[in-house]
C-alpha cells in the first residue's frame, strides 16, 4: 500500500470537508452548540458559587496590557463625552429594578471600591494581567433593588460595531453578584484609557475577554435574553455563535 503525500492530503481534506458538511446539519449544530451548556453546568457544579478567580502579585502584571475588542468607539457622541473628560457621562441602571439609577463618574468614585490583579483571557488564546479598581456591581444592583423577575444583567456599550449596533453583553445573577465582578474605572492605577474601555468597563473574572464589556452606558436587568439583540445575549454570541457562557 503506497500512501503518497497527495493521497494523505486529499484524504484529510475530504474528511474535514465531511466534518464541515456535518456542521451545517441542524441536529449536528444543535449538539455542537449545546456543549456550552454542559460545560457551564459542569463548571457550576464543581465550583463554589463565590469561588474566586486567581489574583496575582504586582510584579506579575503584564508590562503592557493588550486591549481587546474595540480600540476606540470613535462615534461623535463618544468623542463629545471624551472631550469633556466624561463629565457629562452617566451610567444608567434600569430595567427590572425598583429604583432606576443615573450615576456620574464622580459618584461612582465615591462608592466603595475593590482592587484586584487578575488575568484577562482572550478567546483567541492570549492573556494579560492587570490591576483593576472599580465598584462592585452588587452595590449598584442592591442600590437599584432588583425585582424578583430579574434573571440577567445586560450591559449596553458606546462602541458602534457597525450599522448602528452598539456592543452588548450579559451575565447571570451568579456572576453579577460575585465579589470580583466590578465596574472598573482604573487599570494599573490610572484612569481607564480609551483603548481599555474608558470611562467604565465590566470585569467578570471567571469568563473570557469578550464578556468584559467596555464603554459602559447602561446596565439593564431583564427576565430573559430573548429580547436583547438577536436573542443569544451578546454581540458576538448573536453574530458569530460565540458561547454565552464563556468560562471555557
Amino acid at each position, binding site marked *: *500500500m503506497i500512501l503518497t503525500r497527495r493521497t494523505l*492530503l486529499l484524504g*484529510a*481534506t475530504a*474528511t*474535514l*470537508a465531511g*466534518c*464541515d458538511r456535518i*456542521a451545517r446539519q441542524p441536529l449536528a449544530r444543535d*449538539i*455542537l*452548540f449545546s*456543549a*456550552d451548556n*454542559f*460545560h457551564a453546568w*459542569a*463548571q457550576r457544579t*464543581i*465550583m*463554589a458559587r463565590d*469561588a*474566586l*478567580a*486567581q489574583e*496575582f502579585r504586582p510584579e*506579575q502584571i*503584564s*508590562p*503592557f496590557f*493588550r486591549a481587546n475588542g474595540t480600540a476606540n468607539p470613535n462615534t461623535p457622541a463618544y468623542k463629545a463625552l471624551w472631550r469633556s473628560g466624561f463629565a457629562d457621562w452617566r451610567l444608567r441602571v434600569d430595567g427590572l429594578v425598583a429604583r432606576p439609577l443615573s450615576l456620574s463618574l464622580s459618584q461612582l468614585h465615591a462608592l466603595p471600591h475593590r482592587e484586584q490583579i487578575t*488575568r484577562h*483571557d*482572550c*478567546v*483567541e*488564546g*492570549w*492573556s*494579560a*494581567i492587570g490591576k483593576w479598581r472599580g465598584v462592585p456591581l452588587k452595590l449598584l444592583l442592591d442600590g437599584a433593588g432588583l425585582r424578583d423577575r430579574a434573571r440577567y444583567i445586560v450591559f449596553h456599550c458606546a462602541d458602534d460595531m457597525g450599522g448602528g449596533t452598539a456592543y452588548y453583553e450579559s451575565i447571570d445573577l451568579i456572576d453579577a453578584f460575585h465579589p470580583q465582578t466590578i465596574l472598573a474605572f482604573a487599570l494599573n492605577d490610572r484612569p481607564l484609557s480609551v483603548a481599555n474601555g474608558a470611562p467604565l468597563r465590566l470585569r467578570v*473574572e*471567571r*469568563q*473570557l475577554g469578550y464578556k468584559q464589556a467596555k464603554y459602559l452606558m447602561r446596565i439593564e436587568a431583564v427576565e430573559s435574553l430573548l429580547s436583547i439583540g438577536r436573542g443569544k445575549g451578546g454581540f*458576538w454570541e448573536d453574530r*458569530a*455563535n*460565540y*458561547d454565552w457562557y*464563556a*468560562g*471555557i
Partner: protein
Amino acid sequence: MRTAAMRLDISTKDNRVMAMEPPYAPEDMVRRHRLTTRLWHWLNALLLYILFTSGLGIFNAHPRLYWGQYGANFDHAWLELDRFPGWITLPALYNLALSRHWHLTAAPIFAFALLFYMLWSLAGGHVARDLAFRRGELAPRHVWQDICDHARLRFPTGAAALRYNVLQKASYIAVLFIALPLLILTGLTMSPGMNAAWPWLVDLFGGRQSARSIHFLTAFALVAFFLVHMLMVLLAGPVNEIGSMITGRYRLPRDRP
C-alpha cells in the same frame, strides 16, 4: 489450521503461567483485543482527529506561544508560526467559534472515555497483564536488543507476537498515562472558570500560557506517536493489524524462513 478462538489471557492472574504460553501454532487465529479496547481505540481515532484539527483552528486565532502566566503580542513568544492551512483545520475556513464548538464538544467525551478506559484497564488487568514491564525487560541489554530488532524490522513471529515488546509498552504507557491526561489537564487549565474552581491546575503548569504551550507540544508529540504507530501497522501487516482492532481476532504471524 486451528481457528478456535483461544484466549490469550487464560492465565491473567498469574504471570508465571502466562510465560508458559499455550501451544499456539503460526497462522492460528487468536483473540487479541477486547471489545472495550477496540471501541476506545476507534472512538479515540475519531475524537483525536477532531480535537487536533479544530485545535489548530483555535491556535490560528493567536499563533504565538508563551511561557508563564501571561502572554500577548507585546510579550516574548518562544514560538511564532504562520496560520495552519485550511486543509488541516476544522473548519477549513477560519472560524474560531466553530473550531471551539467542535473542540469543546469532543473534549469532554474524550476525557471521560479516557478516564473510563484507564480505570477499566487498571482494574480489569489489562495494564498488569499486557502493559506492565516484566522482570528483566528494562535491563539495558534487553532494551538495546529490542531497539535493534525494531531497526532491522524484525518483528516477532508466532505466539511471541502477542506480547508487547518493551518499546511498545513504553509508548503505550506514555500515551495512556502521560500524554493524554496531560492534554486534558492543560486544556482545562486554559479555562478561566476552571481556574476559579481548581486553582491548583494553574500552579501545576506554572501559568495559563505555559499550559497552552504544553497543550500544543503534547498534541504534536501525539502526532509523532500517530505517525510511528501508522508506520508500524503498515510494516507489521496492515490487514491483520487493523482487522484485529476491528474484530478482535489476530492471525499469528508465520515464522521467518
